[in-house]
């Protein structure tokens, strides 16, 4: 008879095995998917790798693709560690981009070093407030945060659609493109490596990762954040205002997601459009979870997923495999990761039935 027994402690070897097994199974199922779609695995994976890491330009492009994922991944980590299941990263990212764009409308000819920080600030306030709204609904009205954040995602996207499709922010003269006019140069994020247009957003993302780590592990707020995730009752008994903590956590999470929006609109596309960032918020959730809900883990996962996304464009050119393989792969990896990280808590015991 096979029994599953709980382990008392999980060694690093077990954790590592869990990752390796998850990645292995994930790749295997993805390969099966490619075969089932009638394409060649070697071609597919080969092109994916080429596109992601094949040249220094490719690597830089992967970093650009990873930047928004780092932000939405961090946003996920901050919220999920407090057991606040916010899935509003998508909407908060758009809200951040919209708030930043709105600010830029009032900043006229201001020089970059004034305009850009203000834009970033506006974005963070926009995304943070949207997120804190869901936090407020949770503390005050016990509204499930999964539901309220996903509802707000839809609302924000429809609102953006209104603004861009013949609405107040549409580029004049082109009603069919659903986009704003191109951003003036003083609003574009400075570029660090011109080959792939790697902008300072990447640097900000790295800084944000370190800050998140410090906040979560070393500060009283992080102490409360982690305790909130494990046992809010004990916090309450010691006088912590749990409702207020939820608001602060949600605000930070939303501000981080907003930076993804800034990165894509002000660093890459130079226009506010409804279709360029789609999915980055939701992918950020996968990034955060696969990163083990740790800031550095999310960073690594974001880099990996950014590489995958970048490689998928090349792959779709070189083979018949649609770039949509990558979102599918990401989902598969996530599910295997969830299963193995739970299984690693158990040890398999084979027991003989007791004899007389």
């Amino acid at each position, binding site marked *: 008879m096979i029994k599953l027994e709980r382990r*008392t402690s999980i060694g690093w070897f077990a954790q590592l095995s869990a990752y390796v097994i998850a990645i292995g199974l994930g790749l295997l199922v993805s390969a099966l998917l490619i075969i089932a779609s009638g394409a060649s695995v070697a071609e597919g994976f080969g092109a994916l790798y080429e596109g992601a890491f094949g040249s220094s330009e490719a690597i830089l492009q992967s970093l650009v693709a990873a930047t928004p994922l780092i932000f939405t991944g961090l946003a996920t980590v901050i919220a999920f560690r407090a057991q606040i299941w916010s899935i509003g990263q998508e909407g908060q990212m758009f809200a951040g981009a919209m708030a930043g764009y709105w600010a830029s409308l009032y900043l006229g000819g201001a020089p970059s070093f004034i305009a850009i920080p203000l834009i970033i600030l506006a974005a963070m306030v926009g995304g943070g407030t949207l997120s804190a709204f869901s936090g407020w609904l949770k503390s005050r009205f016990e509204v499930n945060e999964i539901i309220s954040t996903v509802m707000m995602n839809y609302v924000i996207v429809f609102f953006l659609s209104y603004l861009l499709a013949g609405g107040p922010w549409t580029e004049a003269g082109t009603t069919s493109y659903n986009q704003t006019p191109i951003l003036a140069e003083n609003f574009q994020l400075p570029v660090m490596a011109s080959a792939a247009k790697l902008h300072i957003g990447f640097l900000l993302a790295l800084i944000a990762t370190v800050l998140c780590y410090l906040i979560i592990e*070393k*500060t*009283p707020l992080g*102490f409360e954040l982690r*305790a909130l995730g494990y*046992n809010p009752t004990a916090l309450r008994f010691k*006088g912590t205002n749990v409702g207020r903590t939820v608001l602060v956590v949600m605000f930070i999470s939303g501000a981080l997601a907003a930076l993804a929006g800034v990165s894509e609109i002000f660093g890459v596309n130079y226009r506010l459009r409804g279709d360029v960032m789609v999915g980055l918020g939701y992918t950020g959730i996968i990034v955060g979870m696969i990163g083990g809900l740790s800031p550095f883990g999310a960073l690594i996962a974001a880099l990996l997923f950014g590489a995958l996304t970048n490689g998928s464009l090349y792959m779709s050119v070189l083979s018949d495999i649609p770039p949509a393989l990558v979102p599918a792969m990401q989902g598969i990896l996530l599910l295997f990761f969830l299963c193995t990280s739970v299984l690693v808590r158990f040890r398999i015991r084979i027991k003989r039935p*007791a004899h007389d």
Partner: protein
Amino acid sequence: MAVPTLEARKLSKSFGPVRANHEISFAVNAGELLCLFGENGAGKSTVSACLTGLFAPDSGEILFKGEKIRMKSAAEAIKLGIGLVHQHFVLVPDFTVLENIIIGSERSFAVPYVAAAAKLRKLCETYGIEIDPNAQVRDLSVSEQQWVELLKALYFDADVLILDEPTATLDIENSKKLFQIIDKLKADNVALIIITHKLDEVMQSDRVVVLRQGKVAGIRDTYATNPEELTQLMVGRDVSETEKTRTPVGAPRLILEGVTVAGKGNVPDLDDVSLTVHEGEIFGIAGVAGNGQNPLMEVIAGVRNPSKGRISLDGLDITDLGVQEIMAQGLGHIPDDRFLQGLVPEFSIAENLILGRHRSEFAKGNFIDQTKMRDHARTDVAAFQVSAPSINTPVGNLSGGNAQRVILAREFHLSTRVLLANQPTRGLDVGVIEYIYERLLEKKAAGVAIILASAELEDLLTLCDRIGVMFQGRLVGIVDTASSGLSEIGLLMAGHETRLAS
């Protein structure tokens, strides 16, 4: 000699390194009340779980009416006729009494309300239990729920009935009623096993099996033994009488006037409570858990706010202050549920020790002072004899006793003026209990005003200067332990109820 209805032969069961049962052998006959007696952790619940099919023993045999049986599930035990009345009720509050009883035995598509109700009514008549089969369990009182729990087992025509701490939530009158039912069952030739740690109930049984640390310490015919011998067997040594040191009680320190805490609906959780606790006094709160002890402690500590009334500490009005402000006044609070309210199980010992002071004393600028936290933890772990691999061990890995020591360490620092201790010894073994009471007495000697809520009346009588009895959120009486005894308090607890019944 008739074959015993149920017999355990050299039953052993371990959970990992912990040996819960070691070669336990005893038997119970039809029409007999056998008592399983022992302190917490002695192995009583494990034995009963094995006998009712919940666990399979690692080795040993179970014989039912002389035949060896091996049960793979609770369903098999029920089918054989072995019933269990759980200590912590296993009922669905949403269901009616009838539904709770018959779900699991009736396999028809539609619930046979009419037929089952008739059978249930007969059962109630036979045993003198008054209950409405169509009442929703959530609307019943605790003692009524106990009857439902009992009826669940009776409905199956059990040949053996195991009752696990059945009077834990019953008052004196209903306890008597329970034993009347037990007498009837004996007359009907049912074999009964009662698990209890209350000596007066043990003495009502026919035979006693004393368990100590997983082994049988002794089997006695009850008429041939006495409480002292049984206690000695249970504990393994002579139990010393805790000397009651009569330290003088000082000026009034903690005063509650007309404190009311709102509850769900119209019934308040705490109803117009007034009391005064003096410096160096241990004020006991007696009463079955759930009668207002928790709201009382929580409202004093600031976790909840009263809707009416005033609370003052050394003259300062603390009625509307928050937990942190009251803590700063020198109040410590040991909550009822150690893992749910007192600790964060995933946090380390060190982190749990600074819970509540992580923003104040243990913060340095924007960060937590890790060095200070670690030094503090090392000191406390040594001073309170917390047995753990390191200060970084998650508190959830500790035993109940050690986890309680962590809470004690933390709250003792804070309680320079008032200490609230809510059921601090629940579920712990005698060694830890003695330790906790010693430390409490130290605090008393240092002049701290202490409120101690406990389900163990005997402990309260030994430790406390005065005892208040709580019932349904009200303080129904205060007695002085110097001049009152067990019976008087029992009367207070029961007397109030008879007054309500009429």
